[in-house]
Structure formats: C-alpha cells, structure tokens
C-alpha cells in the first residue's frame, strides 16, 4: 500500500483514513460486545478495549510500513 493517498484533492498519510475506519470498526465491535455482556467477564474492560483498538489499527498499518 502507498504511504500517501489523495482524497478530495488533499494529500494525506494513508494512516489517517485507516485510523478513521478502525475507529468506526471499534465502535461497532464495542457495541456488540457490551450488548452481549462480554465485558462482564473481562478483568479490565478499558485496557481490553484499548488493546482491541490497537490491534485493529495496527494490522493494516503494518502492511503500509512493511
């Protein structure tokens, strides 16, 4: 994947749209997990959420900087 992309005539790092997309994904994921009561079984929900977000964000980012 390229390092920079152009959206609406603005050049920006590819990380930015990836960040936005993973934020949306994380929100959906979070909604599902809290509604199914998954967080009741997790020791530190905040840490878990952060970790999940980092995973979601890092996996596509690795492809860019590989």
């Amino acid at each position, binding site marked *: 994947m390229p390092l920079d992309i152009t959206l609406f005539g603005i050049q920006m790092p590819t990380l930015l749209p990836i960040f936005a997309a993973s934020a949306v994904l994380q929100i959906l994921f*979070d909604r599902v*997990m*809290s*509604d199914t*009561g998954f*967080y*009741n079984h997790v020791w*530190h*929900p*905040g*840490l878990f*959420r*952060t970790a999940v977000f980092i995973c979601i964000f890092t996996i596509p980012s690795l492809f860019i900087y590989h």
Partner: protein
Amino acid sequence: MQADKTLMISAKAFPWKRALHEWLSMDAPILIYMVKATIAGLIALWISMKLNLPDPRTAIFTVFIVMQPQSGLVFSKSYYRVVGTIVGVGISLILMGMFAQDPIWFIGFFALWIGICTAAGFKYRNFQSYGFVLAGYTLCIVALPVIETPLEVFDIAVSRFSEVVVGIMCATIISDIIFPRHLSDSLLTAERERFGNILSTLADPDSIFGTDEDAHAQTARFSSGVVGLHAIRINSAYESGADRKDRQHSQHLNHEYMNLSTTFHSLKNMIRLLEPNTSKEVTDTLINLYAPIASSLKRFSSTVFSADDLNRIIQELLEVKNTIISRVKREEERLQPLLDEDAYDAFIATSYLMIRLLNELHIHCVTYLSLLKHRLSGKTSNELNRVVRFSTHTDNVLVALAALRGSGVLLVTMGFWIATGWPYATFTITLAVVIGLLIGTLPSPLDAVINFFKGGVSAIILAAVYDFYIIPEFTSDLLTLSLVLAPVLALVAWWTTQPKWSGFALGFIFLFMYECALDPYFKIDPTLFLESSLAYLIGIIFAGAAYLLVNFWSCSLTQRRVAKILRRQIITLCEGQLTLQRSALESTGRDLIQQFSTQGRLNMRSSRLVFEWLLLTLEIGRAIVSIRRTLQRLHPQYRYESIDNGLKSIRVFFETPSEALRNALLNTLQNTLDDLRLSENGDSNRLQSLITEFALIRTVLLRVDSFPMITEDSCR
C-alpha cells in the same frame, strides 16, 4: 454489599481502619485523578513535541479541558469536543475561503455563527452543549490568527485539529486504563441511596401528615436528583459494561421515581390543604389508612437491600395494597352520609392519591429488584419493553438572550479591534467569545467570570515566573520540562475537582497554557508576553460586562414565563393530540423548573411557589390525560355533554385565570360529577375512574391557593 457490611463491622473494631477506609473513599480518588491528569497532560505534550506540531499547548490544554474524574464523562466530553472541533474547522475554512477580503461579511457571518453556537450550547444539555461551545471557539482560534494571511488557514486548521486529537487520545486512554472509575458504579450507588431515601421518607407518617416546616428539608431531598441522575445515565452510555438492559432499567427507575415523587408531593399538599376547613374525621381516617403502610415500611427502611429483602418488601406491599383498597371502599360508604359534598370529594381524591402512591412504590420496587438481579446475575426477571424518553424543554426567551449576548460580545470586541488596530486584539476577541460560550450555562455567570479573572491574573504571574526564570534556568530537554511542569499541572487538576474553585481553575488553565512557553523550541519575548496578557485580561472584562449588561432576567419575569409555559401545557393537553405520555409531561416540567431555578434568580419563597405550580400542573395534566384516555373507551351512552364541558372550562380557565372563571369552572365540574354519579352502576370501572379524576381536579382547584399566574408580592 456483603463486603460493605464486613467493612463496616471491622471499621467499628479498629478506628484506624475506618480512617483508612475514609481516606480510600474520599481522598484517594482525588489523588489518583491528579496523577492521571498530570500524566495525560505530559504525554500529550511529549507526543505533540515529538510529532513537531506547531502549538503543543493546544494538546495539553485539551487534556485539562476534557479530563474528568470518571471515564464516562471523559468519553462523552471528548466525543463532543472532536465533533465540535471538526465542525468549527470546517466553518472557519468556509468563512476564510469566502469572506477573507470582506470585513463586513466576514464579521457578520462570524457573529451569526457565534450566536448560533451560544444559543445551541444553551439549549442542549450535558456535553452536547460543549460541542457547540467548541464549534464556536475553534472558529476563533483557527480564523483569527491568520486573518492577515488567509492562505495559511488550511495549515493552521490541520495542526489545531491534530493537536486536539492528540490531547483527546491521551486523556481518554489514560483515564480508562489507569485506575478507571466508572460512572455506572456511581449510578448504582446513587440509585441505592435514592431508594433508601424513598423508603425512609415514606415510612415516617409525619413526612406526609406533619404540618410543620422542618420536614421540608427531607422532602426537598426527595424531589431533587431526577435531572442529575438522568445526566449521569446519558454519559455512562459511553462506558463499556453498561449495556442496553442497564440503560433501560435506569430510564424506568428515573421515570417511576418522578411519578412517585409527584404523587407524594400531591398527597402531602392535599393533606396540608385539607387541614384548616375540613372535619377532623377525614384526616383521622386517612392517618388510619396510612398506618399499615408506614409500619410495614419501617421494618425495612434501615436495612441494607439485598434481593431477598426486596422480595419480601414487594410481597408485603402487595398485601398492604389489597387491604387498603378494600378499606378505602368501606370508609367511603361509611363517610358518604356523614360529609358534605366537597369534603367527600376531597376524601375520594386523597385516598386515590394514597393508593396511587402505593401502586407506584410497588412498581418502583419491582424495577429496582430487576435491576439488582440483572447486576448480580445478568438475568432479568421482567421485560422492560416500553421506551421511556426523557424530554427536555428550554425556554426560547432564555436561548435568544444567550444568542444576543454571544453575538453582541463578538461585535463589540471586533469593534474594539477595528478601532484600536491593535494586533493582539484577536486574543481579546477569542477569550471574550470563549467566556460567553462556556460560562453561560453556569448558575451565576457573573461570579464565575470574576473568578475566571482572578484565576487568569494568578496564572499570568505564575507563567511569568516559569517563562523568564524556571524554564530557561532549569530545563534542557523534554524530561526536565515535564518535571518542572508536573507540580503546576497537579495543582490545576486538584482545583478542577473542587466545585468552588471551578471558575478560578478554568481561568488559570486558559491563561497559563497560553502564556507559558510550551513551544517546540523555547522562544520568549517580554513584549509579546505582556501585550497578549493584557489582551486576554481585556477580553475577560468585556465578557464580564456582557454578563452584567445583558441580564434583565428578574424574578418576576421568570415567574411570568414559567406560569405561561405551565398554563400552555395544560391547554395543549386539553385539546391537542393524545400522544403525550405522562413521562414526557413530568420530565419536561422538571427540566424546565431546574433550568429556571439556576438561571432565573428565584428566591426561596418564589422557588417554592414555582414548585407548587409545577405540582398543580402535573397533577391536573395527568388527570386530563387519564380522563381523555378513558373517554375514548367509554360506552357512548355515558358520554355526557357535561364531561366535555368540564374539559373545556378547564382550558378556558387556564387561558386567562381569574376568580370568576374559577367559580364557573368549579360549578361546571360539580355538574359533571353529579351527572357521572347518577349513572354510576353502568360502565362502572371507567365511570368510577372518571369520577375520581374529576373529583381530584375539583378538589385541587377548590383548595389550592396559588395558580400559575403572577401575583403582586411573591417576589419580595
């Protein structure tokens, strides 16, 4: 709960353990919060300096604006801050792109936007309003610095936005990872406390039948907290762990609590009004009727509530309810020949209120039990399907006033800028607008502005020490800068936890962050420092003057507005669509009163008067809704003309209340009641409920001494 109990027992045995417990529950959270805020601020500073963002102070400033002790609050505040910043950046790009060369259009649209933001920030609740504040503020910090060089606007927009995002990320991650404190826990505690309050208040017959005023403190406690708890619930939605069932439970509990407290106050009010001119027979009968409720509640009111306790309470309440209903029937038959018509009506209405109180208490207990079970085991016993909405009402006059103030401040400071031609006047504009946006919703804005000024002056003095002595003398890299800054950040964090320091802390944060040399490369210029400080202070003075001048919101005007709105509510209930639920009626009324009592400078006496109006409106409004619902299902044979006449004359009375109309209304209601009583054995249940509701309205109207209308002396 078991843990609480053992802790209490051990606390009695070892005094130092109690001290430790107290320290853990009172002081430790503040200490943790200070540490968290400091760490978040320093990380934000470090990241934005590493990323070479031009203005790291925006990031650290954002951290301190967003940081709250509970992580749910941080999430929702951050969310709205991001949204507000995006909108503000967009608007500044549009404004600079279109009107950069044309001062009149530029200023005109600028003022319009600030007016819209102030109005919306005032109209919306919680941190939603904060989003609008930010949308206005961002326009100032993005558009004004580059007004001379419009081509740079895109760069500054991008860098401001990145700094804000860095600050927000640090604040949210730190507050959710290091010793997180969840709103949903404090929500449960608050809920438990409220439930205990209800039981202890209702267990004491004096709180209803007592005539003295010392019970007032207790009952005021009963009525407060609906709006506040609602706000906590909204913000806790951003935390993990609070799932949909939880939210539904809290919504229902809040709604039922509102109903319960309205019924309680109506009952109390009714009994107070009965006292002077009704035979003692009625009051004695009522006290006797209430006795079993009180005695059965008394046994529970002091215990800690487990699910088993609640089960037993619910069982008992059910039994008590059945016995009381049958006893009320018997008493009605006994009293009918003894009393005159008015007193008999009053008895029917009051006993109805008592049964309703019991009913609502029962429902509330069931919902609370279901919440507890859900919390403990994840299972729910009953399904809560109905969605209860909390509706709010904001008075348009208040909103217009706020918009006027916001735009006015902007225009005046713009005039100041144009007249003086001072390059630093943009700082004046920014701060004046920010204060206009931020402080408008606080209870006493003028005091807050004064505190803001004090905080600003102290911040400038401290910033001078840092800029010209500590930073150049002792810092060589980021680590030492962080070490040097940490004490100040911790102090600021401590101030923000103290409610009485809030205005001061806000001013301190603003001025310290803007005056302290937190640039990527240390640069300091005494002229710049002095001139910008002066500009900021002038901005605060402008904003304070605006609060002083645009504030013709007197007590009598407030009363007039409230009275008008409440009367209009009854009128719409009489003729409008029947879609309005009781929950909407109640929450709107309460929200309205809450807002007017923070904004409207009511004294003790008039705020009690306003509360009485609210009760009257809620009670009559509820009765009207119930009557109209019953009418829809009533057999056409019994649909007397006098029922419609009754409703119509209620409407006429509330359009223009006067003594003559009140007498006419009472007569009409009497006719309605007579008509209904003649055919009581037909469609008996529905007719019976119509009789009760009309009797309730009539009794309230007959005895209540204050109506939602302006009186001469209530403001003195």
